[in-house]
């Protein structure tokens, strides 16, 4: 099909990179934002602008909160009723309590898993949850959107297409394409070492674009590869559902074997039982960690087989000091006696824990957090320059032939690069502009995002007519102006509606909000500078018959 190996890899890189690049752009941009998801949450939810809190008392605060969660969330219930072979009873039985926090969380996610009877899945649960202020157990309103962890983060891995997990499949496919693009990129690149530090912005746009594409691709190569790979590994259970589909009998047998070994029963006993003081178990766990010389706050708390005589309480150490996650102590619920401690992990589990932990970043290491954020932005630059190179290389030929291929690519590139930022910033602005007591406030914010993005797409399509004449679309400059304006407005609105202007947050050293504000200002400034340059370039007269060199 192709004359040589390099050409066939170039084809793969170009077309897979282009088609799935639009998805990758969303995955990497919102992934970068997700590095600071908890901080964006603080910005978007002013009432939660407090210092991170440790796991509160179970006996005095959490127990009553769990008891108040009477039913699964409506969408969970609807999904569960489809999995059940019979109509679900009026009231479901709680089977699991869970509470999760990290060193960056001032609020606590508290959830209850309800047993789904007659389900086609084993040990099937449907979840109901609340977010509480751990200081006093006060419940936070449900329709306040945690923009970082509940909107940008799911966007990063599912694009919010939840129907049959289709979004996760698309993102997974894009991650596969990323791995293929990294490998094929290395094969195509003729001077990977000789041009390692090369960036020639002064020369032709095509040359500078390719330089930047190669530079960001090569120097951050381990990042691109490892993050795409670990993303796939995290959702391996979705992409290869061997355990709950193909190997179900084997899994059940393994569970029974494991239960015999650990003493943690796989099934509830069916005999009612009571829970001893969980606070005492938390104290025992902390004492245990102190005796082992490791730092330890409770990160995750879970009660399994709630209300049953064989209930057990699992207490996991938070993961501030290490990359990998999960290190648990398991107590007998009725007595508070330690039944089992998670043993040191084996080789495969250690590698899996490292890759997963690296991607999810629950550790306390602000330098690494920022470095990973920069890595994500380098990926975004790499993908963006890929789009621009595609268009710049072809637009003159397409203009002569009268075909519109590069116009469409340019419009979609504008939509996924500047358009995505416009939509994100519009959502932040709306988050601060909407009245605090507005009903369904979260829906308004989500709608803002999609409407703004759709507007950006329409604008990009309209303005990209210029590409048909091999000129630059004005949409790039105009959407950059929009980014600059929205970024500035967001900072002003935050100060106006909450009083937490930069002077105050910086003086108080409240970095979650100060950091988001500073990033907004930096983005606005960068966008304004870019807009000026892009406008100048869009106004340039195009030579009638330019030579298009063949770089790739």
């Amino acid at each position, binding site marked *: 099909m192709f004359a040589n190996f390099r050409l066939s890899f170039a084809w793969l890189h170009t077309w897979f990179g282009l088609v799935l690049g639009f998805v990758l752009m969303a995955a990497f941009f919102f992934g970068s934002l997700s590095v600071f998801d908890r901080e964006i949450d603080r910005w978007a939810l002013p009432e939660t602008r407090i210092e991170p809190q440790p796991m509160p008392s179970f006996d005095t605060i959490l127990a009553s909160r769990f008891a108040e969660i009477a039913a699964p969330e409506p969408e969970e219930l609807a999904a569960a009723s489809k999995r059940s072979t019979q109509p679900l009873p009026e009231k479901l039985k709680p089977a699991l309590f869970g509470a999760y926090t990290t060193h960056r969380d001032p609020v606590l996610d508290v959830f209850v898993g309800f047993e789904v009877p007659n389900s086609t899945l084993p040990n099937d649960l449907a979840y109901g949850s609340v977010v509480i202020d751990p200081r006093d157990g006060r419940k936070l309103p449900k329709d306040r959107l945690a923009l970082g962890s509940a909107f940008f983060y799911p966007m990063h891995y599912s694009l919010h297409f939840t129907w049959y997990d289709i979004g996760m499949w698309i993102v997974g496919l894009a991650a596969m394409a990323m791995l293929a693009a990294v490998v094929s990129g290395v094969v195509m690149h003729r001077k990977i070492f*000789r041009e*390692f*530090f*090369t*960036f*020639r*912005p*002064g020369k032709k746009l095509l040359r500078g674009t390719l330089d930047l594409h190669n*530079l*960001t691709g090569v*120097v*951050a190569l*381990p*990042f691109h590869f490892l993050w795409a790979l670990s993303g796939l590994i995290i959702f391996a259970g979705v992409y290869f559902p061997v355990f709950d589909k193909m190997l179900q009998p084997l899994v059940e047998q393994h569970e029974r074997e494991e239960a015999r070994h650990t003493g943690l029963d796989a099934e509830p006993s069916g005999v009612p039982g009571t829970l001893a003081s969980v606070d005492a178990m938390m104290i025992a766990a902390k004492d245990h960690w102190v005796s082992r010389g490791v730092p330890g706050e409770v990160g995750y708390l879970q009660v399994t087989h709630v209300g049953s005589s064989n209930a057990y309480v699992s207490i996991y150490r938070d993961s501030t*000091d*290490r*990359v*990998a996650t999960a290190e648990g102590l398991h107590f007998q619920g009725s007595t508070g006696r330690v039944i089992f401690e998670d043993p040191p992990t084996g080789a495969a589990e250690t590698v899996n824990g*490292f890759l997963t932990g*690296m991607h999810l970043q629950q*550790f306390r*290491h602000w*330098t*690494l957090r920022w*470095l*990973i954020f*920069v*890595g994500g932005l*380098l990926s975004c630059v790499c993908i963006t320059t890929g789009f621009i190179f595609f268009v710049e290389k072809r637009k003159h030929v397409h203009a002569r032939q009268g075909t519109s291929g590069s116009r469409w690519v340019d419009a979609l590139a504008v939509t996924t690069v500047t358009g995505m930022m416009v939509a994100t910033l519009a959502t932040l602005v709306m988050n601060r502009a909407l009245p605090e007591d507005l009903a369904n406030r979260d829906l308004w914010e989500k709608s803002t995002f999609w409407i703004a993005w759709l507007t950006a797409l329409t604008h990009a399509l309209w303005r990209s007519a210029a590409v048909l004449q091999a000129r630059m679309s004005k949409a790039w400059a105009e959407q950059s102006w929009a980014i600059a304006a929205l970024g500035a407005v967001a900072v002003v609105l935050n100060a106006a509606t909450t009083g937490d202007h930069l002077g105050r947050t910086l003086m108080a050293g409240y970095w979650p909000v100060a950091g988001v504000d500073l990033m907004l200002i930096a983005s606005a400034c960068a966008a304004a500078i870019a807009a000026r340059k892009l406008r100048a370039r869009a106004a340039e007269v195009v030579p009638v018959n330019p030579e298009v060199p063949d770089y790739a």
Partner: protein
Amino acid sequence: MPDALLLAAALACTVIGMGWLSLAMDVHWIQVRATRRSPRMVIILRVLGAASLAASLVLCLLADTATMAALVWMMLLAVAAVTIALVLSRKPALLAPLVAAFPQSP
């Protein structure tokens, strides 16, 4: 030494190391110096660069546990390489101090 200082030193080492490695390449050497250099100087620059990157890894390992340090170092390399590439494209003269001790003629 506090971790923040160790990490700052590690960043400095990676940037300087990447600087030396870039100047070991002819195309970047001529951006900084008008005169040619001997093959021996190329080797010296490469050794200096590699040693500096190794030193940064050691500093990372002193600051954090091995798994964390490996990630920090990997990301520092990327950031340092981009930094040097941008300096070379805008103001290559900034790298001149890295080879100030080298003789003007080969």
